[in-house]
Structures are given as structure tokens and as C-alpha cells.
């Protein structure tokens, strides 16, 4: 297994290099337009040229790429073209928000998804199974942005409620006031978790059904164990192995979902930063944030692959 982990780790390097190269080359396509946008139509060619030189866009490509990579290694990601704020400063400010949102979402989706899937598998065909499956299908079909808007809309119309961060105080960090902070993140995380938990629920259910058919479960029953012991000690542990793999794929979807949810609920996270920069064509920001998202996703998948080998003893000893 150690070779497996080592091989997997080594693979990450060329992939990340390829990702960086691809990101860099793609955004070189709009480098010219960026200058146009910063300048507007009122600039003369001379001003435009000097702006290009200032931004370093006239150097040969390999030099720009090398400098960018070197900057990444040193922690210098460039500056926003719109606000001249260094990218790292903005990221430092916004990263905790996105991380908190993603962490809460993962917690909620696991807390909602796994028990529902287990119960549904233990009592197939029952009323609770049907209810769970209906909610499941709704969760898979309703897009998160629609759900978010409905939550805000009907919260307002029926309860006069508005997300706390819309008001005067703005965003409150966790260490300032934990209770208000959790209130601000509760609904965004729940909305995002709804879709994610539907996938987990469905997978847990089918995985549990598969596991419950196994011989070792029958052995456990015939030993006289109570249902709770059979389920918790044997069934759930084995059923959750494929779920770990799916969590990795889900993380990618959640990274995208964070972009949308942060926009709707006015949470100033990295996702919202990316979106704003895309609209403004803020080249250096988009480049760096896209790379960041890809790097995080690659790391998550690496962790999932490694943990999969660790969790499933069959792979470990094969």
C-alpha cells in the first residue's frame, strides 16, 4: 500500500503543473482584453502599451509563466486589477468564510444523509422508506440556487425573516459572536447540504442494501445479535466505504455550489470573490483562484484515494 500512496502522491506533481500551465495559457487568451477593460475606450495606443508593460504582459510567455510560478511559491499571487488589493490579502480574509460554509455543509449532509439512508435500507418498502425516497428525489432535482431563493422568499413572506448578514451588521466572525455567526451560516449550509445529502442518502441506501445481503450479516443474525449490534458493528462500517469515494467527488460539486450560495446569501467567501472577478475580468485574481480551487480539489481526491485504500482492508492486503 505504501507504493500505492507514493505513486499517487508523485502523480499529483505533473497534474498540478499541467493544471497551472493550462490555467495560465487559457487566461493569456484574455490578457489583451484585460488591458482594454482597465483602460476603457479612451486610451491611446501608447497608454495601452505602457499599461501592458506595467502589468508585465509584454514579456515572453515562458517568462510570465515562470514568474507566476515563482510568485506562487513565495506566496505572491499578484494584485487585483480592479482594486489593486493583493490577492493573498483578499484570500486570507475570505478563506475562513468559505471553509466554514463547506465544513458546515459537509457535516449537515452527512448527518442528514447517512441516517436516512440507513433507516430506509433497514425498512425497505415501508412508509418511512417512501418518505425518504420522495425527499431524496426532490433533493436531487431542485437546484440549490432555486431552493436558496425560495428559502429567502418564503422566509420573508411568511415569517418576516431575512438572513442576518443582509442587515446592518454584515458578516460576523466566529470568534466575535459564535451564536450570530452560526445563524448566518445555518441556512446557506442547509440549502447546500440538501442536494449533497440526497446523493449521500441514495448511495447509503443502496450500499446498505448490498451489505445487508452479505453472508457475514446472516452469520451475525444467527449468532443471536440484536439488530442494533448487527447494524452498527457490521453493516454500517462496511456500507460507508463507497461513500468516502463519493465524498471526494462531491467536494468538487460543493466547491462550485459554494460559489452560487455565497452569492445569494451575501457571504464574502472565495467563491463570491471568483464570481466577481470573472464578471470584472480581473485576470490575476481569476487565474489564482481557479488554480487554488483546482489544487484543493486535487488534494481532496488524493486524500480520498489514500483513505479508500486504508479503509478497505481488502485493498490493503491485496
Amino acid at each position, binding site marked *: 500500500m505504501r507504493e500505492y500512496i507514493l505513486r499517487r502522491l508523485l502523480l499529483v506533481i505533473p497534474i498540478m503543473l499541467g493544471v497551472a500551465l493550462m490555467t495560465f495559457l487559457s487566461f493569456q487568451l484574455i490578457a489583451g482584453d484585460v488591458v482594454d477593460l482597465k483602460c476603457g475606450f479612451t486610451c491611446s495606443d501608447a497608454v495601452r502599451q505602457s499599461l501592458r508593460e506595467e502589468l508585465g504582459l509584454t514579456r515572453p510567455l515562458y517568462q510570465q509563466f515562470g514568474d507566476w510560478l515563482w510568485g506562487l511559491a513565495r506566496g505572491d499571487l499578484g494584485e487585483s486589477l480592479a482594486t489593486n488589493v493583493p490577492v493573498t490579502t483578499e484570500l486570507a480574509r475570505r478563506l475562513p468564510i468559505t471553509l466554514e460554509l463547506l465544513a458546515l455543509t459537509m457535516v449537515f449532509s452527512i448527518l442528514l444523509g447517512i441516517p436516512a439512508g440507513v433507516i430506509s435500507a433497514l425498512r425497505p418498502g415501508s412508509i418511512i422508506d417512501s418518505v425518504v425516497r420522495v425527499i431524496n428525489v426532490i433533493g436531487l432535482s431542485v437546484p440549490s440556487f432555486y431552493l436558496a431563493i425560495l428559502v429567502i422568499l418564503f422566509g420573508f413572506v411568511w415569517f418576516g425573516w431575512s438572513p442576518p448578514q443582509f442587515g446592518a451588521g454584515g458578516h460576523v466572525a466566529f470568534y466575535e459572536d459564535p451564536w450570530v455567526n452560526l445563524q448566518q451560516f445555518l441556512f446557506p449550509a442547509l440549502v447546500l447540504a440538501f442536494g449533497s445529502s440526497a446523493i449521500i442518502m441514495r448511495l447509503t441506501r443502496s450500499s446498505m*442494501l448490498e451489505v445487508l445481503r452479505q453472508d457475514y450479516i446472516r452469520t451475525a443474525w444467527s449468532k443471536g445479535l440484536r439488530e442494533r449490534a448487527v447494524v452498527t458493528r457490521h453493516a454500517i462500517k462496511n456500507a460507508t466505504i463507497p461513500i468516502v469515494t463519493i465524498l471526494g467527488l462531491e467536494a468538487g460539486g460543493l466547491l462550485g455550489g459554494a460559489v452560487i450560495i455565497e452569492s445569494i446569501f451575501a457571504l464574502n467567501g472565495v467563491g463570491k470573490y471568483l464570481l466577481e472577478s470573472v464578471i470584472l475580468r480581473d485576470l490575476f485574481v481569476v487565474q489564482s483562484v481557479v488554480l487554488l480551487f483546482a489544487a484543493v480539489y486535487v488534494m481532496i481526491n488524493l486524500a480520498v484515494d489514500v483513505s479508500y485504500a486504508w479503509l478497505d482492508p481488502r485493498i490493503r492486503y491485496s
Partner: protein
Amino acid sequence: MAQDVAALEIEAVELPKKPAWRKALTLARQHPLGVAGLLIIVTLIFSGVFGDILPVGDAEKLHLDEKQLAPSLSHPFGTDNLGRDVLGRTILGARISLLVGVVSVTVGITIGTALGVISGYAGSFLDSVIQRGVDILLAFPAVVLLLAIITVTGDDTAFKDFIIDYTRIPENTFLGIPVFLDIFIISVGIGIAVAVGTVRVVRGAVLSLKENVYIDAARAMGASDWRIMMRHIFPNVAALVVVLASIFLPIAILAEAAISFLGIGVPEGTPSWGADLTGNNREDTRNGIWWPVFFPGLALSLVVLGFNLLGDTFRDIADPRLRGGGGGGGGGGGSPGL
């Protein structure tokens, strides 16, 4: 003994052949959810194709004297803040969703399958090269990849100007499709994401197909690689491709809605379900005007639901062992982020 048996003169009993429509009816009765899904999708296609000529209120021209009317008999879904009939807009939105969905999935699956078959069948160097490329593209989360593509191909970019100047793709209305070029670019963008998802799966299937003896036999008989691919590999991958298409179509529709919602998809004013959920309509919800936002979103959810139900039913029919909500690890649902 043999003569006794022969003497029995057993007559073969012919079972009455069931006409096709009867079989279909039995299937329908066994899978009511699938029928519901099918009905939804038929409604979608109908709205998309015939949207223009249906007798509903005007969805595109502004009627500023009829702003924000609540649902009533003359406007069953009410009007939005520019006086446009929401029912009409919802029906026209179906066209964009359907179009983007079908084009992106067609483009994506075609490219993905071609690459997957070549990659899987050719093996060695070509396979490695293609797989590295796919690995790199797969490293980007889907929405982020889409955002990147849109940044590079959006309005006022060198890329888009290039396309406008050097190709003859129409910019405005073409075949009744508004803002044709933008829709085309969005579809191809989503198609790239779909292709990336398809390559891996198809390659896996081809790799296992290659193990079959008949491939070796064909090669021994002198069949060229091309012939083997066409005659043996492609037909066997076809079923998988249809399943993939049924999974990716709702995802593509959701993707278009999501990027239009974020404001970076279809241009301003084009009737799209995603776009109708944002902008002025969203502002209006703060005043309790819920209908411009509610109905397009409901239509979107129903369409995705329809595809999910239909896909589930197909998988049930094709392989009942997959029943139990599995179907390959929860495939066929909307992407969690969307």
C-alpha cells in the same frame, strides 16, 4: 417406449402474441413514476418547439403598463416587473434549456466517446497522452471549469471577436433561436465538461471489451483497427452512451441555468429559467412578489425531476438488479453544487 411417447402427439400451443402497444401499457402501469417523468419531458419538448405559436401572453416585449400583476385568468402566472407574461417566459425558457441541453450533451458525448474509444483501444502512448489531458481537466471542479471557459469566451474577448469575424455563425436570431452565438458558445463550453466526464467511463468499457475473444478473432482474420472499432467496439458501447446521455442531459440543463443565474450565461433579457431567477425578479421578491421567480424555478426542478424519474425507470427496466436507488453509485442525480 419411444413409440408411446411419439404417439402422444403433443400439439404445440401457441401463446397469443402481445402487440407492442399492449406491452408498452403493461410497462407503463408497472412504472407510474417513469410515465410521469416521460410526460414532463414531452411537455418540455413541446414547449421548446412550439413555444412561439402558443396562445399565451407576450413574453418578450415590454408592457410597462401591466407591471407585476399577480396571477389571474389572463395571466395565469402573473407578470414580471417589465410587464412580460411569466407563463410565456417560462414556456420560452424551455426552448433555451432544451437547446443548450441537447447540443451540449451531443457535442460532449460525441467527443468524449470518440476520445474514449480511441484512447481505450489504441492503448500505450496515445492512451497515456489523452488520459493525462483528461486528468488535468478533471482536476478543475465543474463549475470552476465552466467559469474559466466563460471568462475566456465571454463578451468582448479576443476569442469571441475571432469567432464573430472569422466564422459565419450567426450572432442574432437564427432558426428562431435568439442570440445564437452566445447559446452556441455556452453549449460548447458545457459540452467540454460533459466530454471530460464521458471519456473516462467509455475508456473503461472499451478496456474490458478489448478482452473479448472475438476481438482477437477479428484481428486474426485480418480486420483493420478501424473496422474493429466500428463493427465491434462502438455498437457495444452504444448502450452505455445512451445511459450517459440520460445522466448528463439534466446536468447540462442545470449548468446552463446556474451560469445564467450567476449572470454570466445567456445575455440580458433572453428568456432562460436560470436568468429569470435573478436580477430584478430577485429584487422583487423582497416586496413579496413571488411569481416571476417561483414558476421558472419550478419548471426547472420539474424538468430535472422528469429526467431523473425517466432515467431511473430505464435502469429499472434494463437491469432490475440495479434497483434500490443505486444504478452505479447514485448516478443520475443533479450535481450537488448545482
